[in-house]
């Protein structure tokens, strides 16, 4: 056991390294424990030559280590020097396995069995976790690797990839590149590839059919030997030549390890973080958590926190946080003058959903929000606008225009805009300030983080959103009090895509409200399920059963993964009995739906093939994931002449890169869904963007603001494969010049060859590129405008599948 230090820092990423450097500068006794043999493993593992970006730009760096945008090698090189200059004490190969003791005398045990003692601990292990290791015989041989830095490192080898999640498939595809002449095998324990994205699976299957790799299902490794691998297959054991094994078996998130020290998290969700005090202290006194693990994935934040946390441990309590000036800017425009911490306290005490938020969380989340002063009568947002942010009323109140002439107030301390947040759909009503007031607008990401980390806030938002949704559906006529019993008995159900919620002919009287996602309604006509209707989030179904007591007259199933609110028939009936207007409104809705059903049935009788086509087209569209789209590009291949003018127009209106691939994608009955963003209701691509630059714009478009760091997370998260990582090509000669002299590559995306020739050795940084629906281009989507034949249109699924369409088709 070594001598006790004042602080032990676990993890040498940007956060841990910056902390250790501060300790070194202060002359504080410390030890930096790193499990690998180099500093900062996460960045070490970035692709070679990757440009590391220093966002957010406005934030000042406060650290004893240098950091500015640059190549990975340059940054790591600087840090090695800085660590030495700051006299940082590092212990490599020190993977911490267990922490015991308490503040003043922690005992930190590594996997090798060494024990370090420290008064305080700074935990900065990031979120990468540990890769799952192979477990069969020979699993410790050195030719088993757990990641592929550069596929080009492997040439003419026998490579076996174990694990067929996205990471495994991507690695296999990388090394299976024809020019590398590797013999690639990928193993999957089960029959299907449920864990990977459809696009990756399709690419892999194609590579398999083309003989670029062999895909072995229901097969696992049994024994590893140098040069050979024995497989356990359904037909018995088999030994294949194998020089390299790439094991991609997922990784264990560090949460379990963190919790084993007694540190509490804010909630059970995946998005939750450790509970922290304003000085980053966890629920275990003496253990501080910083960096990505604390919920701050950007390198600059990590480094600033490393500096700050050591200052705090050193007893410096006057340190103003580095984000102070940004927060001050946020509050600047307000009429009253208060200091930042006074404002934060003001908001915390006046808005109910902020009540349980810690001061540290409050700071963090105000950075992603905005506070504004509104005059009486100002419109906050209008009905039909897209928007997914949440508003909270700190002062004053607002008026909601529920129906024509029906105004409902929302009082101070409450929230509004939650429907957009939860369902991802357009605003349901216009909202005006009822008096001069101060409202906080919380971005979608910040609101989701808040809900994940503060259970009280989540409960409050969910309840309010359900009440409002019901009020919205039953337009006026209802008060929050009427809804009490209905809401109390309501349950939230998650249903996966394709799951049947109601079955035609079955008895039942529960009523469902779609909270997020969408549903399709089908009816069996002449022995074939016929598509009747697409139900977007915010609609309800099952009400016919309550009213008539008759069995379900159609089947309802989830078009995409969805969240439903189930209201019991019992409570719903009571509410209807108490409020005759609501009963009338419901009956009217039922009658309308019944009429539409019988319309389709009658058409089916006389125009069977047109109805079948409509129905099959609808199923195709749903299968292509358009059920969660808000706006998608559809090409009619009866009209498309293959000129690719759509792609060229897209490239020419966007830094020379096309955001759509016209030819790729599925086709049914000449209706083609090209590879292009669908602007999902709940964009998967937004889930994990470290600099948080993916947003939804005023037209409903999902776009990236400048600041992408090129990490590729969005590309991996998008299930439709529409994001590519690409660098903008250099400026082309003008169109006229090309037309007159043929100089330059002409309209559209220049060929990689031309770009390469222009750039020479320069390697510009690759960032995420996707359709932004031609945001900011007054004329609207260029792909549609530039199609000479009218083959390309942009639609929302509701519009496209409307009943009016069938009406026209069968006329």
């Amino acid at each position: 056991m070594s001598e006790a230090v004042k602080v032990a820092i676990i993890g040498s990423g940007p956060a841990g390294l910056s902390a250790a450097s501060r300790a070194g500068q202060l002359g504080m006794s410390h030890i930096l424990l790193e499990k690998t043999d180099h500093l900062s493993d996460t960045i070490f593992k970035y692709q070679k030559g990757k440009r590391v970006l220093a966002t957010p730009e406005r934030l000042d760096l406060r650290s004893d280590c240098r950091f500015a945008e640059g190549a990975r090698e340059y940054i790591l090189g600087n840090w090695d020097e800085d660590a030495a200059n700051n006299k940082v004490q590092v212990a490599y190969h020190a993977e911490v396995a267990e922490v015991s003791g308490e503040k003043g005398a922690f005992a930190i045990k590594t996997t090798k069995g060494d024990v370090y003692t420290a008064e305080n601990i700074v935990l900065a292990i990031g979120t990468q976790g540990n890769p799952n290791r192979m477990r069969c015989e020979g699993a410790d041989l050195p030719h088993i690797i757990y990641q592929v830095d550069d596929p080009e490192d492997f040439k003419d080898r026998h490579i076996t990839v174990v694990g067929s999640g996205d990471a495994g498939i991507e690695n296999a595809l990388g090394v299976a590149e024809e020019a590398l002449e590797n013999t690639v095998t990928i193993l999957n324990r089960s029959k299907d590839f449920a864990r990977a994205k459809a696009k990756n699976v399709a690419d892999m299957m194609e590579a398999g059919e083309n003989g670029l790799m062999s895909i072995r299902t229901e097969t696992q490794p049994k024994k590893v030997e140098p040069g050979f691998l024995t497989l356990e297959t359904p037909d018995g054991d088999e030994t294949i030549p194998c020089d390299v094994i790439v094991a991609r078996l997922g990784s264990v998130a560090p949460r379990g390890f963190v919790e084993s020290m007694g540190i509490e998290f804010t909630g059970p969700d995946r998005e939750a973080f450790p509970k922290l005090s304003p000085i980053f202290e966890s629920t275990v006194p003496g253990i501080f958590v910083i960096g990505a693990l604390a919920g701050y994935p950007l390198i600059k934040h990590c480094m600033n926190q490393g500096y700050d946390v050591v200052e705090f441990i050193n007893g410096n309590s006057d340190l103003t946080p580095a984000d102070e000036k940004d927060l001050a800017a946020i509050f600047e425009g307000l009429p009253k003058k208060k200091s930042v911490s006074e404002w934060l306290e003001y908001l915390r005490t006046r808005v109910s959903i902020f009540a349980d938020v810690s001061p540290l969380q409050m700071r963090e989340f105000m950075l992603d929000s905005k506070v504004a002063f509104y005059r009486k009568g100002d419109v906050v947002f209008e009905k039909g606008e897209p928007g997914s942010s949440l508003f909270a009323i700190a002062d004053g109140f607002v008026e909601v225009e529920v129906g024509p002439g029906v105004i409902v107030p929302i009082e101070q301390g409450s929230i509004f805009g939650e429907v957009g947040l939860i369902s991802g759909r357009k605003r349901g009503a216009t909202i005006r300030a009822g008096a001069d007031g101060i409202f906080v607008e919380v971005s979608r990401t910040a609101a989701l983080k808040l809900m994940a980390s503060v259970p009280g806030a989540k409960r409050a938002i969910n309840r309010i959103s359900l009440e409002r949704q019901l009020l919205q559906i039953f337009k006026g006529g209802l008060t929050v009090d009427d809804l009490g019993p209905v809401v109390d008995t309501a349950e939230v159900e998650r249903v996966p895509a394709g799951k049947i919620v109601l079955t035609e002919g079955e008895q039942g009287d529960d009523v469902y409200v779609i909270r997020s996602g969408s549903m399709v309604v089908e009816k069996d006509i002449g022995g074939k399920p016929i598509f009747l209707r697409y139900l977007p989030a915010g609609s309800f179904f099952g009400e016919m059963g309550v009213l008539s007591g008759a069995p379900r007259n159609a089947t309802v199933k989830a078009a995409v993964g969805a969240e439903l609110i189930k209201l019991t028939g019992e409570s719903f009936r009571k509410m209807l009995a108490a409020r005759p207007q609501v009963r009338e409104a419901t009956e009217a809705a039922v009658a309308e739906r019944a009429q539409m059903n019988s319309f389709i049935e009658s058409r089916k009788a006389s125009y069977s093939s047109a109805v079948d086509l409509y129905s099959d087209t609808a199923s195709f569209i749903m299968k292509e994931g358009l059920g969660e789209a808000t706006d998608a590009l559809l090409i009619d291949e009866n009209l498309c002449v293959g000129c690719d003018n759509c792609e060229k127009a897209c490239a020419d209106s966007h830094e020379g890169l096309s955001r759509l691939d016209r030819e790729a994608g599925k086709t049914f009955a000449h209706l083609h869904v090209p590879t292009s963003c669908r602007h999902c209701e709940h964009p998967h691509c937004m889930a994990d963007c470290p600099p948080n630059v993916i947003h939804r714009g005023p037209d409903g478009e999902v776009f990236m603001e400048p600041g992408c760091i090129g990490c590729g997370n969005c590309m991996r998260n998008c299930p439709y494969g529409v994001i590519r990582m690409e660098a903008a090509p250099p400026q082309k000669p003008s169109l006229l010049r090309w037309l007159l002299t043929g100089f330059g590559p002409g309209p559209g995306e220049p060929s990689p060859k031309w770009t390469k020739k222009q750039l020479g050795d320069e390697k510009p940084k690759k960032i995420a590129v996707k359709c932004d629906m031609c945001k900011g281009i007054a004329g609207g989507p260029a792909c549609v405008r530039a199609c000479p034949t009218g083959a390309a249109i942009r639609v929302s699924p509701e519009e496209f599948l409307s009943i009016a369409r069938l009406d026209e088709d069968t006329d």
Partner: protein
Amino acid sequence: MASLFQRRRSKATQVERVRERRHEGFLRYAGFRWAKISGGLCLLIIVSYALIDVTPRHNGGSWYGYTLGTIGAALILWLTALGYRKRKMTRDHWSLKAWTSAHVYLGLSLIIIGTWHTGFQLGWNVHTLAWALMMLVILSGLYGVIVYATLPQALSNNREQMTQMQMLEAIRAFDRQLHSAAQPLTPEDTAPVLAALDEDPFAGGIAARLSGRYPNCATAAAYRALSASRSSDAEARTKVVGLLSQKEAALARLREHLRIRALLEIWLYVHVPLTFALIAALSAHIVSVFFYW
């Protein structure tokens, strides 16, 4: 958070401007708007030509002839501008579909405008050359409209969701398999297979491209040769023959794809150069008219 926090937004959003609920081709655009306009224009010309008495007789040099001539020349210049419009991605609102629709119908109206402009006085001179070129451009345009209306379906059916890259990749994959499967064959049988491997799917020239017939196809030849041959080991040969027939099918798909694409494009190589010839002849026609005035 660029736009998240804008307080007020314009109501008619840019995307709504190009929104359509269903596909509507350029020929039907806006309920045949340009067909109606163009038809009306032609009718007007035919009727007024009959009613207006020009002495001694209708010809290009009368005030009536000048009017039609000016309209016609302006129209030709505007029709030519489509080539620029198609490629210049300005940010304001326009629709190439609307342009194409107007192009086609107004272009057709030139048959009336141009011919009636001549007063039916045709001869062997530069004036008639301009008229003839115009008619040829229109004729080629007509062909274009016909292929635009009929071939896309065939293109879509033939490709069955495959992209051109994937078709090429499929052929390459068969080549790789052929390469290893042909190892056990006798030299006599190997030669045609090697020739098939060397075949460039794009080769064959313009005639083959347009007709879809490749009489010298090495893959087909290898298939024939190996099916007839008795020299190599039967099992290995059967395997190669099977692969060759699969490769032939893949080649056939790619060739059909290229054929349809060529048919959809080839006419533009007539339409556009003729347009420039027309503009040259038209200039000569106008200059000579004013010169001899």
